[in-house]
């Protein structure tokens, strides 16, 4: 069993591509669950691609601007850890065994 170490902070914000190389989503966060003494990553939280989506998300966090109709809810989804290959933190990609993920 081989063990590779990667850094969380190098993964956050990275674009995840599918097996064909097409950008699909952005790594928003990694969700860990305790198991005994350990914390294991069970899910990977993905967010929308694109600068505009992030800007609108930022505006949406201010209640006044939200009330004015600016910004819109940023969509995230949590997918199982096994669907993404994280071994190269600069180029995370969906495993070919993952179900076809088109955003």
């Amino acid at each position, binding site marked *: *069993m*081989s*063990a*590779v*170490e*990667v*850094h*969380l*902070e190098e*993964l*956050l914000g990275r674009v995840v591509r599918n097996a064909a190389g097409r950008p699909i989503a952005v790594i*928003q*966060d*990694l*969700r*860990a*669950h*305790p198991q005994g*003494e*350990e*914390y*294991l*990553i*069970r899910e990977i*939280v993905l967010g929308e691609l694109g600068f505009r989506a992030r800007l609108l998300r930022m505006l949406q966090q201010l209640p006044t601007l939200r009330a004015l109709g600016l910004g819109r809810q940023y969509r995230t989804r949590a997918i199982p*850890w*096994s669907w993404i290959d*994280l*071994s190269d933190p600069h180029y995370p990609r969906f495993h070919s065994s993952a179900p076809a993920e088109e955003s």
Partner: protein
Amino acid sequence: MDIGREILDQQLVDRTGVNIGKIDGVVLELRDGLPPRVAAVLTGGHLLARRLHPRIEAWTRRLTRGWGPRSHDPLRIPWSKVTKIGVDVRVDVDAHDVLSWEHWVRDRIIGRIPGA
């Protein structure tokens, strides 16, 4: 627990309540066929600079070459040492064993001024 939100950039505190630093990095161990595990937290070194921009890291390395404590590597604290996660992250470590830059500034500069 979303580790980016709840662990990264949080304040790291030693067993007596003294600040050690901010968590600048989290080490994940990827294993074949098993979910990744949270292995350690990192603080200091040039991690923060690298997160801002690789060029900024190169610049801070050059700036601090030749002075400061002997090692400019980040401090690595195994996840097993984490005792409590709340307002800050408490670890079972003694700050005085690990605060290299703080002690360097104290010994070389601040400690030399009368009344420190």
